[in-house]
């Protein structure tokens, strides 16, 4: 596994999970079951790198995402963003991390114009920019994600699923965060549209050098966008390898069954 | 959106509503009754209805009243304050004497009495009478009861006048001596608070007067559910005879006027008491029902609070101006559709009462009143006028008084409060926490009895809003002690004028009492005039019909 954190900030990992464990207790009495979502998971994401995280539903992917985003405090273990543990207030990390989540239908506030949704992170992280400067950044971002800037004036219900997910990506990048989590970001889209979004992410990452954690149950998508792949099986991190290595000969039996199913 | 006559009836066809509309159009109801009210013929002199002797059957009678008795001392008659309590307790307890349709004193437990001089009364007791537990009435019961009443310092002990001594002067004779002549003494003895109690059982503690009633009267209590119903059964060994037609009497407490009307219409009650003057015309049309209007000596009055610090009402001229502005006849015509008459302090239906049109406020001119208000600047202070929600008529009178006072530049804000708040702000608070108010009280059966309420030292309840006026108090005392009728009438007229000028308690109109009964169920005897609000006064003479 990766050695201790690197002093040099350029290659220091953007996100570090050390021995992170999370357990849920559901039901009660006889039916009381404790589900171990994450057992001692350790992983890192370097700047400019995309780590693919795969696993079946119920393998702890979503829990890992909320821990990585600081939405859930782990039962044990450490979570470091840019070397710092998550603090109580989220304002401190404003602008440094962002997410693109699964449901295109609910990724944008239906009652606000698309432009305003994209501009929102700036209002917290970049108070120094004036309103018009912020609007200018929004126009640039929309162009970068391949959308006509005029979309800023439209409402979410006037956009297709693919277009809405592009807006989410724009919103995620507008504050040039160091770390982005993509939690099943494309699984609800059509195959053709998925392709375009994945290509877009690769391209923007090359330009902005953000670290990304790409979570999905779809190996095809992970293969197209991830540099390294990590496999989660019932809360355990069973294998981590480079994408090329992983797809050529998976070590762990569970990884093998995943690949056979393709 | 104007709904004219034609479309309204067409639009409502078919629905239950149409039934009532059809009824209206087919003359069920008298169109808007013009002022002056419906004339009423008396069945016999002094009686609105007389029981038909020919009917010999016996049975049950149901009577619906608007509220139940709920006194501080439970069922003890001596401290009872409301007319409903007097009526209900009057079914079980009996008094020495009673009043007839002309307010004359008639014998009851005292078969006869003489007055050797104007401060001594000697009563002959009917010792054949027995209490319902079978024990015969004795002079000790009479003496004990009257002494207990005088000592009780209750409302009624004041009305009994200056009693000095009560002694048994023979095994069927009791003599009462007064400190000074007191004309209304016999009238005071005629009301339930002066009823004769079973003193032997009271003294030995075997009867608790607050919870049980043990009297010599015609009826016994079979069951009581507070605020719901009373059930009485005839007292088999009542000294007044055991041929009572009404063997079981049920009193139902129904506070909604429309529900009482409905019950009478559909025959689920034989008799009912009404407060709303329109019951007369609303029920008049139904055959089988007879509705009579009994003139009560009770009267509505306006309270003018002269005691509230730095209120314009401290000035008697302002109060008199307000009194002048109030038009009693208009109230009688509009609120009560002409079914009642104005009254002075002494209830106008009692013999010797003062005449209303001679009152100074009736003769004073409205313009003078308006001038007084302008001079004193009383107009620029908004006065509050509080009324009790328990009786909707109060609010109607208040709205009329408000308009009448507006004529002379006095602005009034009406505030409807529930009974508890009303009593606290008007009677408990010293000084009264209000400017004007409207209330009513019983007029009793002797003109000078009610005048006592104008002397706060004897009345207590109006200490918070009435001043003490020596000259008025003197007139009140004189009115009570003057036994010669003509001389008394003069004193009372002077008394009325003086109280009218002080204008702290301004009498308005008589409080009408409407009684409706189902002629196919009962043939009652009902007096045209009533002093103590007892609509069942002649229950013993009632006959059961059908």
């Amino acid at each position, binding site marked *: 596994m990766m050695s201790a954190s690197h002093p040099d900030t350029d290659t220091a990992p953007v996100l570090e999970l050390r021995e992170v464990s999370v357990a849920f207790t559901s039901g009660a009495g006889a039916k009381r079951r404790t589900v171990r979502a994450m057992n001692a998971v350790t992983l890192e994401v370097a700047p400019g790198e995309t780590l693919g995280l795969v696993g079946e539903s119920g393998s702890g992917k979503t829990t890992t995402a909320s821990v990585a985003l600081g939405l859930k405090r782990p039962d044990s273990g450490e979570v470091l963003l840019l070397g710092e543990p998550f603090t109580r207030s989220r304002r401190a990390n404003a602008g440094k991390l962002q997410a693109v989540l699964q449901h295109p239908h609910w990724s944008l506030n239906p009652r606000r114009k698309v432009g305003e949704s994209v501009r929102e992170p700036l209002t917290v992280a970049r108070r120094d920019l004036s309103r018009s400067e912020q609007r200018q950044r929004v126009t640039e971002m929309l162009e970068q994600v391949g959308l006509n800037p005029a979309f800023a004036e439209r409402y979410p*219900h006037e956009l297709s699923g693919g277009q809405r997910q592009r807006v989410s990506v724009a919103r995620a990048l507008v504050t040039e965060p160091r770390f982005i989590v993509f939690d099943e970001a494309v699984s609800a889209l059509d*195959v*053709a549209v998925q392709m375009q979004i994945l290509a877009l992410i690769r391209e923007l990452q090359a330009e902005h050098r953000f670290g990304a954690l790409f979570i999905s149950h779809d190996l*095809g998508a992970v*293969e*197209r966008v991830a540099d390294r792949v990590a496999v989660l099986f019932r809360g355990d991190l069973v294998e981590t390898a480079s994408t090329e290595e992983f*797809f050529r000969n998976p070590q762990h039996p569970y990884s093998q*069954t995943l690949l056979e*199913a*393709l | 959106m104007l709904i004219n006559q034609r479309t309204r009836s067409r639009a409502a066809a078919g629905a239950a509503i149409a039934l009532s509309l059809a009824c209206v159009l087919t003359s069920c109801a008298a169109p808007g009754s013009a002022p002056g009210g419906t004339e009423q013929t008396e069945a016999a002199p002094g009686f609105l209805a007389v029981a038909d002797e020919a009917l010999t059957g016996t049975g049950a009678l149901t009577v619906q009243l608007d509220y139940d008795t709920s006194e501080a001392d439970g069922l003890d008659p001596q401290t009872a304050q409301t007319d409903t309590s007097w009526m209900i307790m009057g079914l079980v307890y009996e008094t020495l004497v009673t009043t007839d349709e002309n307010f004359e004193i008639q014998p009851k437990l005292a078969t006869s009495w003489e007055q050797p001089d104007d401060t001594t009364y000697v009563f002959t007791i009917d010792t054949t009478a027995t209490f319902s537990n079978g024990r015969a009435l004795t002079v000790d019961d009479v003496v004990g009861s009257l002494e207990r009443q005088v000592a009780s310092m209750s409302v009624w002990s004041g009305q009994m006048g200056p009693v000095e001594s009560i002694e048994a002067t023979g095994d069927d004779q009791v003599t009462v001596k007064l400190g000074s002549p007191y004309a209304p003494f016999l009238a005071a003895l005629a009301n339930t608070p002066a009823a004769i109690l079973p003193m032997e059982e009271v003294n030995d503690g075997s009867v608790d007067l607050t919870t049980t009633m043990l009297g010599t009267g015609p009826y016994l209590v079979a069951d009581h559910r507070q605020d719901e119903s009373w059930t009485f059964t005839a007292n088999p060994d009542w000294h007044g005879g055991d041929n009572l037609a009404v063997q079981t009497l049920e009193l139902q407490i129904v506070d909604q006027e429309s529900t009482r009307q409905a019950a009478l219409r559909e025959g689920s009650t034989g008799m009912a008491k009404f407060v709303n003057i329109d019951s007369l015309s609303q029920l008049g049309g139904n055959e089988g029902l007879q509705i009579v209007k009994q003139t009560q000596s009770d009267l509505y009055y306006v309270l003018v609070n002269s005691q509230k610090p730095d209120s314009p009402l401290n000035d008697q001229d302002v109060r008199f101006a307000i009194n002048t502005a109030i038009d009693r006849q208009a109230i009688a015509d509009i609120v009560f559709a002409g079914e009642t008459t104005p009254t002075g302090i002494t209830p106008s239906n009692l013999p010797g009462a003062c005449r209303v049109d001679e009152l100074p406020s009736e003769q004073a001119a409205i313009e003078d009143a308006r001038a007084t208000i302008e001079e004193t600047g009383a107009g620029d202070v908004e006065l509050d006028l509080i009324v009790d929600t328990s009786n909707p008529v109060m609010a109607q009178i208040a709205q009329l008084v408000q308009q009448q006072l507006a004529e002379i530049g006095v602005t009034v804000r009406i505030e409807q409060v529930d009974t508890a708040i009303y009593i606290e702000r008007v009677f408990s608070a010293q000084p009264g926490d209000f400017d004007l108010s409207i209330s009513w009280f019983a007029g009793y059966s002797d003109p000078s009895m009610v005048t006592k309420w104008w002397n706060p030292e004897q009345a207590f309840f109006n200490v918070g809003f009435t001043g003490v006026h020596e000259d008025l108090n003197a007139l009140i005392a004189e009115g009570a002690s003057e036994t010669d009728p003509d001389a008394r009438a003069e004193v009372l007229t002077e008394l009325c004028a003086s109280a009218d000028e002080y204008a702290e308690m301004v009498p308005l109109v008589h409080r009408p009492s409407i009684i409706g009964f189902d002629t196919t169920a009962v043939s009652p005897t009902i007096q045209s005039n009533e002093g103590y609000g007892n609509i069942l006064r002649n229950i013993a003479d009632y006959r059961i019909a059908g």
Partner: protein
Amino acid sequence: MTANAPAAPVVSLTGFSAEYRTRLGVTRALDGIDLDVARGELLAIVGESGSGKSTVSQAIGRMLPRVCHVTSGSVHVLGRDIASLAPDAIRALRRESLGFIPQDPIASLNPTMRIRRQLELALRPLGRPTDLESLTELLASVKILEPDRVLRLYPHEVSGGMAQRIAIALTMAREPEILIADEPTASLDAQVRDEILTLIVDLVQRSGASLIWISHDLGAVRRWCDRIVVMHQGRIVEEGPAAQVLDEPRADYTRTLVAAIPGRQDPTTKEAE
């Protein structure tokens, strides 16, 4: 247009158009569809979401939502124009001849009732035996391992694959002549998908019924279907035998669709970036 199969087609849509009229306005769903399905044929309809393929499947069973109005053309099932059928006639058609396999199997079961009770209720109107023994046998026929345990469970306690097997068992018990499966494996996990598809095709071939399979998964369609219809924006852009449509696509839209099949098809070659 394909040559007409000798026997009369079991399902034929002629010049069929429909549009959705909602508060947001009118959007055209189908634009002049001509489609015939022969008896025993395994037909796949592919296309993006919003291309109208689901609307076609609903039209066959006259299950169009209320906001969707037929503007022209007709649908004939087993030679009868379903628009003119009386309510109980269409119900009889659905009961005896048509079979539907839902996209979301768990949601297609009544959440408040145990599986056994639902099976009894569904099978009793058809006069099928509903005793415990025949129910377990029915579930075994769709390769459910412990049928008696499954019968006692509630729908939310069953896995997606298991629920789909139950749905299939329910449908096939009625021996339908036409089976319509609208993206039957969309909500299932990867390894369960193949088992379900093989089960469906096996049952269809054994019963001789025709299968209309709606999907956007070209890989799976290629393996099982005789003929493929490609739809785009409410119109059929291409139609033909599976191999020909996928290997030498004529319509340019089909070409882009085929290009979009992720590398899975051939795990060894990674798409050049």
